[in-house]
């Protein structure tokens, strides 16, 4: 028997390293010891365990509710991926539609293979650094989750979208931010102060899907540094 029941063990005290320590001596292989009766009991227990296994599989057979297979193209409308599924990276917006990301660059530093490329800019009004472009390369991403764990503002998340297949590898480069401009926390701070909210909002520039050329060989392009260059040398 593989499992040891500690209650069946012998409670003793042993002197180990000069200390008296309470020890439970586990019973050893009780059922398979020699002797005809013990042997027979062992065989019957083994047979019983086989029957137990057969009972479990029979339960799967007679209950269709245990089937986990999804009939995918047919149930496309109702299919829901589980929460921890890592579909695609996205920037989390607050209720007003402003992103939480302030371009702090932690995710880019955390990314093990340079799949995240961040470009930040100086805000003309507040003169603070903020996100300009957030570029995510799905083609080299390993979905290791390091960027999300590194994010101090909970601004990154995974969608449950699993239909990410495309016919052109260059379509796997995404620009995640919808605008370049101040994060939601900066706008909230301005609202609290009661001044300069409209001016701050006016500095946002809408950003769409990534449309630039894609450095498949890792070479540099306008707005995107070459892969492997230290982040200080960003354009």
């Amino acid at each position: 028997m593989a499992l040891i029941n500690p209650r069946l063990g012998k409670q003793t005290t042993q002197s180990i390293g000069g200390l008296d320590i309470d020890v439970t001596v586990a019973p050893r292989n009780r059922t398979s010891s020699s002797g005809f009766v013990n042997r027979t009991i062992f065989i019957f227990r083994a047979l019983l365990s086989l029957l137990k296994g057969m009972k479990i599989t029979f339960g799967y057979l007679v209950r269709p509710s245990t089937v986990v297979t999804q009939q995918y193209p047919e149930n496309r409308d109702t299919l829901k991926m589980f929460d921890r599924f890592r579909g695609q990276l996205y920037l989390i917006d607050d209720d007003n539609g402003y992103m939480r990301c302030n371009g702090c660059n932690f995710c880019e530093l955390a990314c093990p293979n340079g799949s995240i490329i961040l470009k930040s800019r100086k805000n003309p009004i507040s003169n603070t650094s903020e996100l300009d472009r957030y570029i995510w390369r799905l083609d080299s991403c390993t979905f290791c989750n390091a960027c999300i764990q590194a994010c101090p503002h909970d601004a990154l998340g995974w969608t449950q979208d699993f239909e990410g297949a495309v016919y052109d590898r260059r379509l796997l480069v995404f620009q995640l931010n919808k605008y370049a401009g101040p994060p939601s926390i900066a706008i909230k701070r301005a609202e609290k102060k009661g001044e300069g909210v409209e001016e701050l909002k006016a500095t946002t520039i809408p950003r769409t899907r990534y449309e630039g050329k894609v450095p498949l060989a890792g070479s540099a392009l306008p707005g995107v540094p070459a892969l492997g260059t230290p982040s200080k040398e960003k354009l």
Partner: protein
Amino acid sequence: MIPHAGYEVITLSDRANAALPESLWLSIGYMLLAVASTAAFMSVLGMALVYVERKVAAHFQCRLGPMRVGWHGILQSVADAIKLLLKEDLVPDRADRLLFFLAPAFSVLATLLALVLIPMSPTMQVVDLNIGVVFIAAVGGFGVLGILLGGWSSNNKWSLLGAMRAGAQFVSYEVSIILSLLVAVLFAGSLQLSEIVQSQADGWWIWRGHISGFIAFIIFVIASTAELNRPPFDLPEAESELTGGYHTEYSGLRFSFFFLSEFINMFIASALGATLFLGGWMPFHIGGLDGFNAVMDLIPPGVWFAGKTGFIIFLTMWVRWTFPRLRVDQLMRLEWKFLLPLGFTNLMVAACLILTDSYFFPL
């Protein structure tokens, strides 16, 4: 000898013999019918069993199995058969070509020879030999010859290892299978399959022989599963160790011959178990209860046979998809240290039961 010979057994060979004095052509017609029906039965049953196996396996593992071709994938086997027929037939370089071509033929031939003896109903049997049980056991050895030849002639180490394992497994478990068959033969007092079926008119040997018949049945199921090379005894074709075992190098039609004979052998083993221990096509009777027996007779014998065989086939599938594969030494230990002594003891007990007429409803 036989208390209730209510059924008259007419085999196709009997019909051909009877027709011979009157018309040679009618006799030849019966022979052709026998050949055609056996071949058709074999191929259709093979496809059906593959489909059933896949469906049952899927649901044992919380899956759905084939769902696309036809309603719930019912035509999947047909599609697979067409695919296999159209596939390229590869012969490995420096293979023994003659033996390579002969091996699948041997396998299918052994299966065919055993299939003609199975009594499916009083009128659905091709040949009824008076040494039926011995014949089936002997022909089974022919099938493993095909496997050994296939593994040897492929010129591939995996094939050779798989074939050698199959040979060792067959030799070991054949002993147990014969010992369990002998119990039923002792009870029935005949080697002829139709007579064994008729001897169970008062009740099936699995319960009439007290515990002896039941143990013989269990040994038969275990040993026949091992002889069929089905999991948990599928060492000859263990995918994780031997890629494909003895049929690694086979493709297309020749592979399908091996595959077909494997599945039909499963049917034959189950049918043999049903015939010897569960009464074959004989309805469920309890000696003395004439009213009950009359009700049971309303169900035709063919349906009884199909039901009992289907039950044993389901049992072997259930075992296959529940238990993990054994190691080679565990396999041998199970046979030589457990099943063989049990089988011998069981045979002695059965002989004592028969000598003292202490089983239920003695003949």
